[in-house]
């Protein structure tokens, strides 16, 4: 490794060779929420026309830092310079005016509005009377959207309502929107989190096109491959502070050099080496879950699927291709229009959700706030939700023992290393990752025959992710079946034994993890093979 290329972060980027001022320079930015220090005196300098990676685990402070930069939050201390001039943004409008565009982690498009309407939203600088009386010039907005998207190498229908677009297309509209006001610096927060591999590829190409045109890009990510591939320079954040910085050469002469750099970045990011993944078990028990010709009478199914005991079956696919319908059908939140579901040979198709849980299903929901926790209630209450017949908490089903429930919650907190001030604290006081650990712990304590884990590690850092993976693998090793729904293919390859691909509510491909080929899965997910056949 070339030591001269690296530079541990000192006060600022004083050793920069060129004299053009950095596109963005943050000096000593600090921001805290109550006792939590999200950013601790962060210094960051982004070269003009480069792609600068911001690498860090969830909760490392990346998003907070970028919200400060974009004027959505005010820092407690520190200053911002844009193109060498000090800036004090009071709102995102100020940041937009200074040429900074931001693509948020959560989509900021309004689904009910069309692409063109979303693009011009809030951008008109016309006077009071014109704003209230003159008709919107949607026609020229449409024309400009088409022109801009074609220049960047993709097509878009500006009259389509955003809610009808695919995730990949929406991501591109987000970028268009950020560039619309003439932004010269683009901040992207985890842009590929919800994208399928082919969509992510298109996004990478788009970002490279933008760099060629001279746009400065800050890429927030915790995905090592995309940082290594796209970025010119990377800053690693850990626990709200800068852990280190490194220059990434466009081409590595030696693969070992690349690996060494990657290992170093991971170490900086998590403070230790990458956790080991436990080995796969080979023992397969009889079928636990058996699904036959299951459909919901709308867009889902019919599908056939078996999950054996001692097996982790991963369902992958682009978000919105029937995964959530499948889970809802399995746990009884959605009524099956046809087909049957059997658990350990027993027909559960017409059972209520409670009966299904009692028969041995556990469920880690994808949408934590909607289905998994009651935000305002305490850890104790949330840990015992779902055990409503009182079984583990009292001798009869007519009352619940406070003491036993508290002990139960404390057990989950201890076993799963949930960081909480007390078990009586409301769940909202926990970070997202810790909430998820509580949910996972609760569902594991059901000792299920079938664990339905939908995005179980979304929002978790590497350490917690490893713990969840170990727990799922432990379940499998004891003969339970695990159904894993995940958008993270790395996760799927790490722990799954078998993989099925959903597209438009049907199974379009199946493979064992050992023979899995990421390109083939990507083609199944995006449906290019089907289109080619037609």
């Amino acid at each position, binding site marked *: 490794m070339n030591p001269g290329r690296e530079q541990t972060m000192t006060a600022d980027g004083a050793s920069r060779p060129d004299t053009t001022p950095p596109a963005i320079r943050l000096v000593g930015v600090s921001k805290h929420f109550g006792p939590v220090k999200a950013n601790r005196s962060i210094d960051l300098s982004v070269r003009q026309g480069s792609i600068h990676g911001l690498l860090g685990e969830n909760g490392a402070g990346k998003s907070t830092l970028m919200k400060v930069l974009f004027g*959505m939050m005010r820092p407690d201390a520190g200053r911002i310079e844009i193109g060498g001039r000090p800036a004090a943004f009071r709102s*995102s*409008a100020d940041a937009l005016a200074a040429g900074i565009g931001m693509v948020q982690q959560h989509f900021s498009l*309004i689904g*009910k509005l069309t692409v063109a*309407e979303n693009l011009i939203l809030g951008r008109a600088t016309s006077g009071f009377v014109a704003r209230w009386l*003159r*008709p*919107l010039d949607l026609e020229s907005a449409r024309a400009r959207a088409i022109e801009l998207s074609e220049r960047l190498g993709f097509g878009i229908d500006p009259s389509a309502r955003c809610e009808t677009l695919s995730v990949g297309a929406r991501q591109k509209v987000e970028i268009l929107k950020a560039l619309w006001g003439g932004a010269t610096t683009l901040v992207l927060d985890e842009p590929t989190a919800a994208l399928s591999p082919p969509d992510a590829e298109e996004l990478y190409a788009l970002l490279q096109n933008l760099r060629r045109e001279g746009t400065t890009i800050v890429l927030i990510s915790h995905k090592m491959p995309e940082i290594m591939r796209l970025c010119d320079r990377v800053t690693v954040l850990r626990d709200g502070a800068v852990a280190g910085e490194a220059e990434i050469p466009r081409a590595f002469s030696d693969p070992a050099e690349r690996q060494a750099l990657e290992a170093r970045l991971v170490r900086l990011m998590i403070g230790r080496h990458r956790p080991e993944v436990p080995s796969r078990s080979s023992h397969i028990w009889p079928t636990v879950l058996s699904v036959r010709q299951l459909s919901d009478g709308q867009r889902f199914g019919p599908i056939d699927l078996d999950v054996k005991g001692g097996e982790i079956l991963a369902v992958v696919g682009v978000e919105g291709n029937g995964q959530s319908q499948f889970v809802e059908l399995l746990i009884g939140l959605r009524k099956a229009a046809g087909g049957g579901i059997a658990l350990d040979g027993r027909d559960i198709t017409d059972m209520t959700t409670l009966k299904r849980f009692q028969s041995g299903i556990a469920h880690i929901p994808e949408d934590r706030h909607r289905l998994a926790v009651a935000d305002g209630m305490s850890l104790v209450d949330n840990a015992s939700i779902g055990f409503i017949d009182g079984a583990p908490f009292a001798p009869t089903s007519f009352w619940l023992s406070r003491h036993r429930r508290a002990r139960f919650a404390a057990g989950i907190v201890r076993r799963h290393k949930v960081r909480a001030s007390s078990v009586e604290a409301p769940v909202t006081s926990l970070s997202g990752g810790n909430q998820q650990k509580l949910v996972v712990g609760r569902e594991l304590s059901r000792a299920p025959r079938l664990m339905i884990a939908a995005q179980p590690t979304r929002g978790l850092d590497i350490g917690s992710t490893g713990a969840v993976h170990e727990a799922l693998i432990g379940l499998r090793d004891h003969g339970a079946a695990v159904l894993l729904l995940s958008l993270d293919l790395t996760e799927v390859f790490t722990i799954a034994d078998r993989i099925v691909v959903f597209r438009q509510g049907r199974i379009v491909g199946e493979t064992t993890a050992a023979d899995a080929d990421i390109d083939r899965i990507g083609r199944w997910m995006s449906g290019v093979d089907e289109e080619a056949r037609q």
Partner: protein
Amino acid sequence: MSNLLTISLVISALHLALPILMPMLGGLISERSGVMNIGLEGMMLIGAFSAVLVTYFTGNPWLGLVGALASGVLSGSTLALMTVTLRGDQVVASAAINLIGAGLTAALIPVIWDVDGLTPSVEKIPTIRVPMLADLPYVGRIFSSLGMVDYACLALVVLVWWVLFRTDAGLRIRACGESAESADAAGIPVVRTRFLAVVASGVFGALGGAYLSIVTLDMFQASMTQGRGFLALAAMVFGKWRVWPGALACIAFGFADAIALRAQILWRDIPHELLIALPYVLALVALATFVGHASGPAGVGKPFARA
């Protein structure tokens, strides 16, 4: 004779529809910006009362109308302060406006006029005759029954539709109603936009109330709005938060009201309470049947605060 009857039915339906149409527009503006306003009934009562109060002391119904609009600004600002600025619960806050509106107006009648329940008559807003229109055969009667206020109200329907759905300001308001966070990220001042929208809804509510007290009638009576503020909300839902379908629903309510009044005279044996209930029954039936699943702007009811 039957012809005459139809025309006069249309006239009375129109006059009965306008005091529902105005608060409907108010509710629409408010909800499109993301604030639920079930306080329109109270705002109407305060507007109706203020109109009579100012007219009584000045003798000028036009000043009474201005007073009503000012009361709308006040009641709208109160609700906006509670819900938008202080981020209180929108249902509770606007229900409070209803209670205050009904209670305060009823309590002030004896204080000011020393009578109970009913104020003395005041000057009404006059109708004006537009020569060309009023001379048309058949429909001329409709036009000759309309006043400046009626024409202004109809123009307001067009204006609200145009602003909300055709202009930049309307796009901003609707964005705040769909997703305050997205609107904020696009640089739109969400709090200010919502505040203004709620104030506007107060003004429209008050206008509907004033229409009842100094255009249709010439006095204020306790609880004289008789749930029109709620009918307006029902009309807004029927119209799925759009101006023209909502306006049509208001006109349908107007017709139901007019038919009920007419039937009261023609068939005296039907209990008139049943007939008065007609528009409300219509609203219930419509809500339960053909309106189907209607979902309003996604951001309604969610207070907005920056982190």
